[in-house]
């Protein structure tokens, strides 16, 4: 299947947006997962609920909230624009932000489960061997949580590729800027004879998800093999 220029552009834009969303949200996702898995503090349940809120809120609501907070005249958006000339309005960075917000809880959930499944005594042993908490995290927790981090990344990436509601509400549907595969499919389905184009993008979308899952499975097997000798 040879892709047209429009399809290539849409595919590359989707990869760019999903990739940026994951790269920038992954460190925060790992930190949040670690806090939820290992720390006890007052208000933890509330924090947990806020982190998981995007999972249950309608994506359009999230998009609207992003518009209110991160839009050019939003509470944070205006400040970012004035002081750092950073704008999330109607551009691919905004689409990446919307995708990241929607995918965040999925990513955190997977990583958190992985961290919780690590025997915390291993971390304690490392402390008795002279390792400070940051070294313990980098050398014990992070490598052992690798399969969960990988799964969280893949799930988040797939969710970003499929993101529609928050993106269209927050940054609209602009060709070459915010029109990712789902938005392009939606656009094609609105015009006469656009169905075949939508089907081609549908196949691209399925192939992309399968490749991501395959690569994650391969990496996971390699890691498992390493641990079990």
């Amino acid at each position: 299947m040879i892709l047209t220029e429009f399809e290539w552009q849409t595919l590359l834009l989707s990869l760019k947006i999903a990739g940026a969303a994951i790269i920038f949200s992954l460190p925060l996702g790992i930190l949040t997962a670690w806090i939820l898995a290992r720390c006890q503090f007052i208000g933890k349940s509330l924090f947990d609920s806020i982190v998981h809120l995007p999972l249950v809120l309608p994506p359009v609501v999230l998009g609207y909230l992003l518009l209110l907070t991160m839009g050019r005249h939003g509470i944070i958006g205006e400040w970012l624009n004035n002081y750092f000339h950073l704008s999330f309005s109607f551009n691919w960075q905004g689409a990446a932000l919307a995708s990241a917000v929607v995918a965040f809880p999925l990513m955190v959930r997977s990583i958190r489960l992985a961290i919780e499944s690590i025997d915390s005594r291993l971390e304690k042993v490392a402390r008795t061997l002279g390792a400070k908490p940051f070294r313990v995290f980098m050398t014990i927790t992070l490598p052992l949580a690798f399969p969960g981090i990988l799964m969280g990344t893949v799930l988040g990436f797939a969710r970003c590729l499929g993101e529609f509601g928050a993106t269209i509400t927050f940054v609209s549907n602009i060709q070459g800027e915010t029109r990712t595969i789902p938005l392009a499919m939606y656009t094609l389905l609105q015009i006469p004879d656009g169905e075949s184009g939508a089907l081609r993008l549908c196949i691209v979308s399925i192939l992309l998800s399968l490749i991501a899952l395959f690569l994650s499975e391969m990496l996971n097997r390699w890691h498992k093999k390493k641990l079990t000798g």
Partner: protein
Amino acid sequence: MLNINVSKKLASFVFQFKHEIPCHGVTAILGVSGSGKSTLINLINGLIKPDIGCIKLNQTTLVDTEKGIFTTPEKRQIGTVFQDALLFPHYKVIKNLTYGAKSLNTERFDEIVSVLNIGSLLNRYPAMLSGGEKQRIAIGRALLAEPKLLLMDEPLSALDMPRKKELLSYIDKLVNDLNIPIVYVTHNINEVKRIAQHVAVLEQGKLQIYGDTEQILQSDYLKEWL
């Protein structure tokens, strides 16, 4: 000297321990399951904090609740070998051994590898080792971090009898060749007879009796153990 005077409220009793443990030879902490042996180990290595009290190792204050002093585990230079070896599964044996070593002293490394007879295991992952081998690596790992004191929390209890005998002979060698003070927690009196010079008996979180091994083994208190 390891000077301990601590109190900590546990689920079923208040753990209270006040005594000096010599920093030479092997001191066994003997007690039935749930008597507070592991609590004592974790108070010494800093994995748990006492409610009140202080712990000093060779005049260095590790904990003093009155003065608000609490030295974190990584700064205490106290090695711990747990019941399960708890090797890092993603590292090969050699990386496990050197994890806590600040700078690799090749001579010391070779000496410990030789005493524990683990030279042939260095390039294996923990999943490829037997229980006894894992425990020997755990001991080597703790020793290479150059601790001032080594705590052993029932290191043999997860092993079968032949492995227990094998590991006990390595612990013997450790005491004789490396001259490191050991606090050895167990509920097995035969292990105490074999390796310990001093014995402290714990019951319900309280020290019941302390003294030289010979003296304690002949005491009335331990009659039911023998």
